[in-house]
């Protein structure tokens, strides 16, 4: 057993956050991987795999909406929880703490734009 690991260990397949539920924290991956699943009807599609140093659940910090996706442990994963209230308070004291989250969100918007552009391109070809 590693004595120096931080956070909490989650077993393979354990659902960390569930799409549609109300979220009150974000998570930083200390070790291992998680998969991000988008549910549509009865099926779920894996849209991303996140690893050490990545975070998820950050949208819950900035809006009052429910979780937009389900996140599940892919193998054993160790996660550190950042509670909404205390973390927001720290961001108010030091706004630059949110920089990395904004950077990641900006990166995700670019990825989505790229995917949308590719999808629109395919549709035009089909026409």
């Amino acid at each position, binding site marked *: 057993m590693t004595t120096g690991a931080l*956070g909490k260990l989650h077993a393979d397949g354990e659902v960390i956050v569930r799409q549609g539920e109300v979220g009150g924290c974000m998570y930083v991956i200390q070790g291992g991987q998680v998969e991000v699943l988008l549910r549509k009807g009865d099926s779920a599609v894996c849209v991303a795999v996140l690893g050490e140093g990545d975070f998820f659940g950050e949208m819950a910090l900035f809006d009052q909406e429910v979780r937009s996706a389900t996140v599940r442990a892919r193998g054993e994963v160790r996660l550190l929880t950042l509670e909404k209230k205390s973390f927001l308070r720290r961001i108010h004291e030091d706004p630059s703490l949110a920089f990395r989250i904004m950077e990641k969100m900006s990166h995700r918007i670019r990825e989505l734009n790229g995917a949308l552009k590719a999808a629109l391109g395919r549709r035009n070809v089909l026409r």
Partner: protein
Amino acid sequence: MLSSLELDSGSHVAVIGGGPAGSFSAYFLLQIAQRAGLDLRVDIYEPRDFSVAGPKGCNMCGGIISESLVQNLAAEGITLPATVVQRGIDSYLLHMDVGSARIETPLQEMRIAAVHRGAGPRGIQGEMKYRGFDGYLLDLALAKGAHLVRKKVENVGWQDGRPSVKTQDGCQEACDLLVVAVGVNSTAAKLFEGWTSAYRPPQTTKTYICEFWLGEETIRKHLGSSMHVFLLNIPRLEFAALIPKGNYVTVCLLGRDIDKALVQSFLDSPEVRQCLPPNWQPPDDFCRCSPRLNTHGALHPFADRVVFVGDCGVTRLYKDGIGAAYRTAKAAAVTAVFEGVSAENFRRHFWPTCQSICTDNRIGKLVFAVTRQIQRQRFLRRGVWRMVNREQDKEGGHRRMSMVLWDTFTGSAPYRDVFLRSLHPSFLGHLLWEVVAGIQPFNTTRGRKGIQ
């Protein structure tokens, strides 16, 4: 050479001291400058090698990275690796003569990191599978683009209105900004006494830290992943803690004139003996130190082109010194890149962070004065013990005393928060009830183990 009191591409920053305050300063200066499109040259002057075991590579501290700092670093993208964190702490045990109480983190997570500042104690036994926290942070700063100058700074002066640094080999170089991060225990701290007209060094007291090898299995069995905090009525002793690491346990004592007799008296107390293996005796020779600890922050820790961060400037009272180093280093870096490096810039944008720590420390002194009274009065100790146990026995609900004690002893929240929470009518009402119930001859805690 730049004459304006602003940093620009090509500006040279000298950081004296490669401990956490110095490494954080270099790291954030480079990170923020890169974001703003500036190309800074940052040199860290640090003669010590943190990969050497013993005092030569150690910055002498208990080695606790607080919950709030672990979380802030995670948000910054700095994930402390398991090779640096010797033990994740998920709870603490409060030991008093009236009994012991375990206080868990709300989510049962390992949220506090126990580390060695250097490579390990003198005469380290077994495989060196962990690396020191200070070396890890210094490497982060170097990976960001800082340069390490492994030379001792012999003198500081001024050259054409800019600070200059002279090393022991006679080299002298001027810089656009001098970040002083020399702590309060190095000889370099003396270089700055009276160097700028207004700077007054911090006031300090002495503490005592030692390391005992117990072995990983013994630590797991007897101390677990809990920090052990002691409120004992031993004369001259104010606070004591046992911090489990990988193979070692760190003993931290705070009090007046700590000598061998006081250390022995603490180690011989039944509350400490119950945490250690039966018949264990301290070896004749072990790694120990008596570092200075700030009790009052420095005055005017800035001047034109000069800023003092970490312990040699302003830090938190007794706890979370590394967290304060992070905050002051980052505030100095933000000020230097976005506002400028004049004394006025630092006064307006860096000093408020220091002031907020100083104000909080004043409240902290009050919190510790109350803690001292609890330590001295058995009926108060019993009331606190009963209240914590009642909260821990109960599923859910407010754990007011548990959280007040957690934040006081781990340094995870500002002392102001701790103080305000302790003024809550429900907190005071419950404490009063438990104190009175503890004094009564009849036992109101039937079924509770260990009541005295």
